[in-house]
């Protein structure tokens, strides 16, 4: 990753080339040669990099974004393979070993019931990802079709959708989620359900606005004049155009959801014990943290780092995908 440039800069193909040459001048011969080679090879193949290739190149230069991506990948792998990674169970109570500071046996120590803190933290990545990623995806699946139809068709349907969006935006979503979870009884499923119910609004509003502006473009009229039916215009002309922003919107929603999951679990509104969640572990440390600070330091570090990581990804995506910034 040493080829990153620390200062943000406009990255047209020409300037990117300049950067390579600068690198070459800065005593990094092997790396610069490699980069120059790939650039040349590329120009012979297709002449121009596609939008996504360019976006990836820009993304790669962003340190925070790359950190986020690496962290997220590791967390996802952990969430999948956690039973193989640790000899303990997340609900394995061992009272004699309660409240131990980090040691050789328990790398991050144990909690008040003698459960291995590292194991619980690793398992805690599961609800974090479920809420962060799955609710975002489900929100997209609901919000995007409704938004695109409202934006493209307009009229009465759009009026209804706009009122709904206004209504949801006017109410504080955190309170709605809290209320819904309370009514439905606290559990991970219900927390996710509540967050999907309130979360689709964001992507719907974004998609509706995007469709409105894309729909007025000349090439949409040209496509209609060519006899392309509406569903094809939406699927092949509007959605690909909106894809970068949707991707960004999805990524930008993850930190909020992660935070919300931690917060609600902290309040006892999320995942039920004994299954662990970082927020809940933080709440559990309430009576112990002054003397056994490891109980709150490690979960809160995980919350902070993952929020930061996903925020970094979102930020990197925004910069990499924003064409106007990169011309």
């Amino acid at each position: 990753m040493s080829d990153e440039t620390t200062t943000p800069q406009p990255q047209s193909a020409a300037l990117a080339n300049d950067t390579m040459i600068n690198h070459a001048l800065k005593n990094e011969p092997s790396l610069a040669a490699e980069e120059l080679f790939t650039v040349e090879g590329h120009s012979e193949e297709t002449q121009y990099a596609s939008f996504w290739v360019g976006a990836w190149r820009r993304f790669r230069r962003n340190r925070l974004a790359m950190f986020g991506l690496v962290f997220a990948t590791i967390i996802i792998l952990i969430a999948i393979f956690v039973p193989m990674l640790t000899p303990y169970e997340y609900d394995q109570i061992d009272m004699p070993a309660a409240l131990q500071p980090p040691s050789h046996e328990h790398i991050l120590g144990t909690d008040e019931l003698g459960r291995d803190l590292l194991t619980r933290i690793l398992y805690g990545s599961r609800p974090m990802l479920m809420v962060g990623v799955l609710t975002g995806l489900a929100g997209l699946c609901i919000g995007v079709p409704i938004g695109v139809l409202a934006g493209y068709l307009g009229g009465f349907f759009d009026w209804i959708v706009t009122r709904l969006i206004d209504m949801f935006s006017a109410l504080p979503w955190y309170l709605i989620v809290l209320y819904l979870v309370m009514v439905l009884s606290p559990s991970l499923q219900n927390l996710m359900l509540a967050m999907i119910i309130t979360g689709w609004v964001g992507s719907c509003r974004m998609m509706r606005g995007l469709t409105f502006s894309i729909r007025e473009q000349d090439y949409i009229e040209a496509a209609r004049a060519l006899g392309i039916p509406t569903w094809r215009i939406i699927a092949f002309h509007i959605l690909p155009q909106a894809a970068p922003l949707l991707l960004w919107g999805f990524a930008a929603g993850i930190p909020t959801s992660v935070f919300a999951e931690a917060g609600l679990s902290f309040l006892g509104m999320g995942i039920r014990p004994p299954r662990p969640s970082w927020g809940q572990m933080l709440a559990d440390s309430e009576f112990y943290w002054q003397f056994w600070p490891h109980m709150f330091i490690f979960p809160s570090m995980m919350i902070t780092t993952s929020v930061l990581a996903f925020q970094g990804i979102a930020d990197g995506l925004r910069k990499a995908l924003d064409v106007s910034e990169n011309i």
Partner: protein
Amino acid sequence: MHVTPLLQVENLTVRFYTKDGVVNAVNGISYTMQEGDILGLVGESGSGKSVSSMAMLRLIPEPPGKIESGSVRFDGEDLLQIKPSQIHRVRGRDIGVIFQDPMTSLNPVMPIGKQIAEAMQVNLGMASAKAMLESIDLLTRVGIPQADRRIRDYPHQFSGGMRQRVMIAMAISCHPRLLIADEPTTALDVTIQAQIIDLVKNLQKELSMAIIWITHDLGVIARLAERVNVMYGGTLVEMAPSKPLFSTPAHPYTLGLLSSLPSLDTDSDQDLSYINGSPPDMIHLPPGCPFWPRCSFRTKRCTQERPELVEVAEGHTSACWHTDRVLELHRSRSAEVAQ
């Protein structure tokens, strides 16, 4: 023997209901076209030339737009009566459109080969591989070199003129019988304009399609069109074969347009002549003839009664109460120039 004309527009009226009032964009125009005709539709901005053509394909936004009355018979079928869900079978397949601005009329995130192929896949039910081969063929025909490699390129990798060629390839991809060219050369350099006009002319001969060429450039019309319709204030004010239109204009507006064209003989110190006043406010059209506030031939009658198109020579009609005086003035002027 009676032959069904390819296109028969009758009494087409289009209005836009805006917050400021009702815009009378097209006010009852009628004309016919035969198979293979090249028709020039001339008029200044806002005269209704584009709206009247887009209304045929029902491409005007509704609301605020509304086709109030009239019929557009294409090969005998009234396009304005087709169900909205069926209109796309006419678009592209029977009638193709080339738009004004090639810089914005191509989807920037789709390779051009795919864009051309899409129309053929949809309209002709072609398999995608065959449609791709066909697009290479089309691109070669419209004069894009190395078409087999360039189909993978995106619009931003083409120049304006090249993009307009791509647009033409798209418009003719499904062999339409009528091509509507909505000011396709306005956004281009003059040299490129000439190339595009020649290209369309050649394609017209090859494919024997009819063309409606919308423009405000009389030079383009002279080069291309067989017949010319002049529009003003949402109405047709003069219809003529292109030669008589240029030699003996019978409407004051046409006369004004022609005399404001600079020519190489014009002394550069001499001011160009122009038409007084500004285009009519389409919300508050003047009663009577729409042109009277700017017309030097006007009489009281012009301000009260709307003139109908009357024949001044064979196939040459003009909507003016004073065609004889217009013709007379033009004749005397031409005589002066000849001396």
